[in-house]
């Protein structure tokens, strides 16, 4: 489903060119559960951003479901993100002035879904994550674990093919972290591809496939064919 061939990404930091990714090749099949691991600055997040179309590679080809994404316009990329990709972030990134339900509703609003349908889908998504009672709460009235589950509901409301999670438990205590991971794994069991970036070896070992990054290259890939 995801094919990365010869991906290169260079950042200019002052006078110095930092090679965040150099010649990364990777193939992901639909329904996989992958943990990307590695030390800080090894390029994990950059890789995730490129898979999520938040960043463009300087060199290389990225095919998502047999579509070359490198020459898509801004609008087309946004449409791909809207329909095929769901993001979960370390810092949740919920809009603070909106309620939990409104945060989950955002992707539907951007996609122009009718209000009546929006309401029922938001309700279903919230109750699937055990958040029905919290729909009217604003993010600052929720616990960290609840916030992350709201974020997961938002990431999955459009039924994407891939969930990209960047350190989803990095800002949570152990129990709520475990809850969040279970929620994500449930989604994976229902067929969504799950790619998560983590520091946590315990979390990494739960994944069926482990990709270790080092200095912008993949140094170890348990699923490489």
């Amino acid at each position, binding site marked *: 489903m995801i094919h990365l061939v010869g991906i290169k990404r260079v950042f200019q930091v002052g006078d110095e060119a930092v090679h965040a990714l150099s010649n990364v090749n990777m193939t992901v099949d639909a329904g996989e559960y992958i943990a990307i691991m590695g030390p800080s600055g090894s390029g994990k997040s950059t890789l995730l951003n490129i898979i999520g179309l938040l960043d463009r590679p300087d060199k290389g080809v990225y095919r998502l479901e047999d579509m070359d994404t490198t020459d898509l316009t801004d609008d087309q990329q946004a449409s791909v993100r*809207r329909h095929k990709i769901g993001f979960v972030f370390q810092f949740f990134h919920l809009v603070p002035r909106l309620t939990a339900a409104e945060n989950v509703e955002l992707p539907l609003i951007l996609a122009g879904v009718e209000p009546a349908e929006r309401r029922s889908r938001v309700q279903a998504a919230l109750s699937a994550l055990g958040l029905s009672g919290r729909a009217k709460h604003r993010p600052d009235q929720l616990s960290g674990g609840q916030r992350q589950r709201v974020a997961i509901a938002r990431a999955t409301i459009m039924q994407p093919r891939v969930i990209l999670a960047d350190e989803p438990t990095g800002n949570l205590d152990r129990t709520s972290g475990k809850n969040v991971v279970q929620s994500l794994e449930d989604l994976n069991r229902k067929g969504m591809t799950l790619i998560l970036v983590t520091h946590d070896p315990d979390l990494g070992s739960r994944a069926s496939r482990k990709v270790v990054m080092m200095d912008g290259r993949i140094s170890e890939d348990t699923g490489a064919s």
Partner: protein
Amino acid sequence: MKTEDVIQFSIRATLGYPTRTLLMILAMSIGVASVILLTALGEGARRYVTREFSSLGTNLLIVLPGRSETTGGHPPLVGGTPRDLTLEDALSLTRSSAIRRVAPITVGSAPVSWKYRDREVTILGSTSELFEIRDLSMAQGRFIPSGDPTRGAAVCVMGYRLKKELFGNQSPLGEWTRIGDRRFRVVGVLAKKGQSLGLDMGDVVVAPVASAQALFNTSTLFRILVQANSRDAIPKAKKAILGIIRERHEGEDDITVVTQDAMLSIFDRIFTALTLSVAGIAGISLAVAGILIMNVMLIAVSQRTTEIGLLKAIGAPGRQILRLFLAESAILSLIGAAFGLILAFFGTWALARAFPSFPITVPVWALGAAVGVSLLTGLVFGVLPARRAAKLDPAQALSRR
């Protein structure tokens, strides 16, 4: 994304930052209110002047001694007058068929006394025709009688305020007053009419022109008021006046004829220009409000960096972000304009209460222009912040907390 969702999202965003929103609305409403109030003042001044001129009388021409190239305004203040206007000049004007009435006017100042009270007032020497020409009305008694204008009777008419000050509540009719070194019998009191052309008709004494000339020991006239037969006859009357006086003054064009219409149209133009320029000055405050909107929106963009990054991550293209932020500044401008209208409404109401004689009116075009310009300001000054938001790199925006 649906339009109503864009509007709703933007309104939620403005409500999310109440201080910022209030500041912007305040700035915008002050701008809009000042544009409307100042144009209302300008328009009021224009109407005031027009009304004053109309109250002079209808189809009026004013004959001034001395030649002047201007078509309106003051009589020439400096420079010699080759030949004075005389009472005979004035009376000869009645020959023209285009002229209905002629009122010669001589003006001077003299003490007026009755019993122990006296006051220095303006004495207006004229004929009975002044009554119709100036469209006067009487509070008591009658106006100075018609008859041979060259023979002055010892009668006078006084303004209502002078009457009050000299006679209090007593009737002055038939009383003898002393004006300068002569005695005049009061035959009437003018009704309240207000000011016209700077001369307060409440504070004058009107006497027959010959008596006034004798009083001031002069044979010249200050000016001659001429009423044409109709509006169409005004140019003909003007020509006739110039012709008759030239004939009488040995072929010299040494008078100036000013028509009321010419003065009116000049003042109308002046005050319209004045209104527009004050509106322009007030427009500067709208521009200031626009710059404030730009600054505050720029701050909003940097405050909401992660929100923008998130919107991009969940599938909003840059175009959409641009629309959202433009909608936000447009909504803020419109709310500000609405408050500005309310503010202007109360402002004009208060001014109208404070100065009841001043016809303050808000021109309809000013309302539309103020609201339109404020919306335009919001959009124009909203473009820069919105573009910045649209161009934000989502990966970077989301990397901070």
